[in-house]
């Protein structure tokens, strides 16, 4: 029986993630040094894990409020006031979600009518485009460029804009480019959003992992709080990817709309993860800073080595990704990534997995040990010099 005919058309048409294709090749190989992992190499700090164990022992095994534990929402409120300079009411402006992933999903589902246009900068996180497609919206990618260190510019936005655009998704610092915007650049984006009457979905999951200068949230700029949904989580900064916990903040009416979708699909995030998240926010900052300092030094090392090797690479101001160009090799990014993998067993993700204009680049995650980074760099060097010879 042909069961595929039961599949909804828009899902049939959904392309498979380029990451998935690459993963299938990598997973069949042995002794690979992977720079292809989009998560911290650190396990969650022990005090956070211990808080979860304690919660279980205390019988915290039940559903929570749809919005999430009020104690967690209060912690989020304090944390965002202190570190981001934005104030959201715990009672009705904060929604705890199953990772930023769910926050993105319910935001699109709550906001996008069929045919609505959603702008987002590209190369970008793999789920934006398909999420927009799944809600029958129309994706409007806006390119970012190596010459700007992959910052999003208002000029690029102007150029890509078309009538009917309703949302703008931002991800700064950006996966996969590590690009961020300065305050001035962000102000220009805010001006554009106000002019075009766009609602901004700001995915700031890498905010804490900003190495040079300040992280500015667009929600903190004048006039922007009312037109921004702020998305954040614990996966990256607190090394909590497996806990599946994040949150969305915004104007009460929009949080209420997202909550409607959330309550019927997810009910609430795991209570154990919520308890752990409180611990992370209240007592996790030293551990977080120690991890950030390590990423910072690893970044300096890998970016320097990639440039020495000839794979031109800007210094990513945030995130744990370097995004080198493979232009010198004369190969496209896919052939380069597969060739490197087969010849030297180093995995980097081809940039085109993050959108068409990631072509010519690869993503190298530096959230891995010095030993691996040193060895990976040496292997890449060997491979590239063979190509040049």
């Amino acid at each position, binding site marked *: 029986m042909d069961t595929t005919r039961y599949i909804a058309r828009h899902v049939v048409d959904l392309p498979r993630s380029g990451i998935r294709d690459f*993963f299938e090749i990598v997973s069949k190989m042995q002794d690979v040094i992977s720079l292809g992992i989009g998560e911290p190499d650190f396990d969650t700090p022990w005090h956070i894990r211990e808080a979860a164990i304690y919660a279980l022992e205390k019988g915290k095994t039940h559903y929570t409020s749809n919005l999430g534990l009020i104690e967690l929402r209060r912690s989020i409120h304090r944390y965002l006031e202190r570190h981001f300079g934005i104030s959201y009411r715990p009672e009705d402006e904060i929604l705890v979600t199953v990772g930023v992933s769910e926050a993105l999903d319910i935001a699109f589902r709550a906001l996008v009518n069929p045919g609505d246009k959603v702008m987002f900068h590209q190369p970008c*996180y793999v*789920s934006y485009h398909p999420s927009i497609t799944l809600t029958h919206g129309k994706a409007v990618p806006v390119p970012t460029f190596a010459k700007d260190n992959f910052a999003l510019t208002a000029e690029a936005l102007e150029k890509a804009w078309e009538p009917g655009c309703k949302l703008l998704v931002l991800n700064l610092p950006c996966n996969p480019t590590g690009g961020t915007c300065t305050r001035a650049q962000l102000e220009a984006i805010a001006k554009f959003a106000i002019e075009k009457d766009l609602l901004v979905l700001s995915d700031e999951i890498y905010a804490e992992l900003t190495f040079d200068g300040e992280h500015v949230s667009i929600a903190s700029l004048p006039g922007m709080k009312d037109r921004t949904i702020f998305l954040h989580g614990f996966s990256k900064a607190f090394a909590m990817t497996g806990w599946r916990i994040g949150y969305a903040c915004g104007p009460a009416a929009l949080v209420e709309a997202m909550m409607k979708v959330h309550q019927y699909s997810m009910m609430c995030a795991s209570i154990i993860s919520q308890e752990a998240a409180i611990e992370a926010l209240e007592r996790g900052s030293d551990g977080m800073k120690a991890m950030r300092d390590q990423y910072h*030094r690893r970044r300096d*090392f890998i970016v*320097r080595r990639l440039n020495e090797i000839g794979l031109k690479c800007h210094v990513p101001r945030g995130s744990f990704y370097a995004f080198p160009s493979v232009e010198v090799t004369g190969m496209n990014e896919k052939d380069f990534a597969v060739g490197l993998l087969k010849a030297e067993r180093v995995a980097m993700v081809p940039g085109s997995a993050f959108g068409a204009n990631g072509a010519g680049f690869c993503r190298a995650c530096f959230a891995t040990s010095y030993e691996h980074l040193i060895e990976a760099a040496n292997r890449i060097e060997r491979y590239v010099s063979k190509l040049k010879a």
Partner: protein
Amino acid sequence: MNPVLKLLLESGGLSTAEMAQVLNLSEAEVNRHLDQLRKDGVLLGWRPVLNIPEEDGAVRAVIEVRLTPERGGGFNRLAERISRFDEVESCYLMSGGYDLLVFVSGSSLQKVAAFVSEKLSTLEGVLSTATHFLLRTYKEQGFLMDTRAEDNERLKVSP
């Protein structure tokens, strides 16, 4: 903090060549930093941290020692003297119910006991000792003994 020292604390297993790569220094410069740290008395030495089966490992004990303080020097002279014994791994001055906490090791229980009764407690100025033998190690200088639990499989590629 000295960048070499920082890196040592962060990932102690790197060779000087690897440290040079990470810090963008020459290997000679890394060695110069290490020499300086030694000269300054900051870097005292290197030791592997081992997980040896109990029956093969040394017998270890902690000893609480009470001392008579001396005019002028307090506990220092005696503490330094005790520290010089090869059997003594570590020696700390403590607040509270006793004065020194001394970690000792020996190849057998008898040898450790003999050290305490013959060498330590007979020293002029040592008022009393209380010896506790270590039965089992769960964590040593930052390393967990049971490493199995930490062997987590991660995906090789993820978004």
